[in-house]
């Protein structure tokens, strides 16, 4: 069991807007400087936004090895020593994904059946199709992640449980990596 755990969080948001630039005529004796009209995405007047924090709410002893989809390089076969049927971390019991990615289809998957309060969740869409996320046990899907995008959040009070997070695609298949911590 870890002595203690924490998560450093950082978010960055950069709004941009497409601006049209008019054609620029003109020439020198040996060079044509004429430039056609063009469009360019520039940073909007809002500027860059973001926040960061050192989040210490997660517990040192997680609900199981499946709190991370990653199979850390430090873990060996010998570490999978909890032989408790179903809830242990034997090969057939563990939620760990060998390559850190969980396959997602139009059929919703529950990231964990643990009923603890959710303290922290990080999700990244590592596939090429958008995935949608439910925080109310497969009822509604208010969050979406495009290809390559990630989101993270802390649960409020006892309102959000680990077993209420579901992920699926609207169509097609994709993959995700995730952390889901108590």
């Amino acid at each position: 069991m870890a002595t203690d755990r924490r998560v450093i969080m950082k978010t960055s948001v950069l709004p941009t807007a497409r601006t049209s630039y008019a054609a620029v005529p003109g020439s020198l004796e040996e060079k044509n400087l004429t430039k056609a009209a063009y469009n360019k995405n520039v940073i909007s007047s809002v500027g860059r936004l973001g926040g960061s924090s050192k989040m210490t709410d997660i517990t040192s002893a997680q609900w199981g090895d499946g709190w991370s989809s990653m199979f850390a390089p430090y873990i060996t076969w010998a570490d999978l020593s909890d032989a408790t049927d179903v809830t242990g971390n034997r090969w057939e019991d563990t939620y760990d994904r060998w390559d850190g990615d969980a396959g997602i289809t139009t059929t919703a998957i529950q990231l964990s059946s643990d009923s603890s309060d959710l303290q922290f969740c990080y999700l990244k869409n590592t596939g090429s199709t958008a995935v949608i996320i439910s925080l109310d046990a497969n009822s509604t899907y208010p969050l979406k992640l495009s290809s390559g995008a990630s989101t993270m959040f802390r649960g409020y009070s006892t309102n959000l449980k680990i077993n209420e997070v579901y992920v699926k695609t609207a169509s097609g298949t994709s993959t995700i990596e995730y952390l889901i911590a108590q």
Partner: protein
Amino acid sequence: MANEKIKYSNGCSPQELESTSVRWFQDSDVGTKLSGSANVAMSGGSLVHVSPKTITSAETTLTAKDFIYVKCISGDDVKISLDNGTSDLIRLSAGESFASEINYDEGNPNNSAIVIDTDGTSTIEYLSGT
């Protein structure tokens, strides 16, 4: 202005305290820092940025959005509902922010209506894109 896009990234570094409780290391279960980013187009070409705003109750409802960013600048914890205020699911302490695309439910807008509330008095910033 049309053709608005939002480039956003969320990253985290899970850490674990070593056994003598002196130093923090990369978490040995996870083994890596995590991050992802995307550049997403807004369907309606509209951005609304509000900052700073002091709230003492559930004052803001955002519906039919493609993207939402909320930051708790200071004060008490901020809580975010994704279902029109029925259940507060996400917590932000001072300095923290939440950014995600929204899967707008045209058939039932309440299923993706965002309400920003507070535990007391908070100063927030938010950006919504449509």
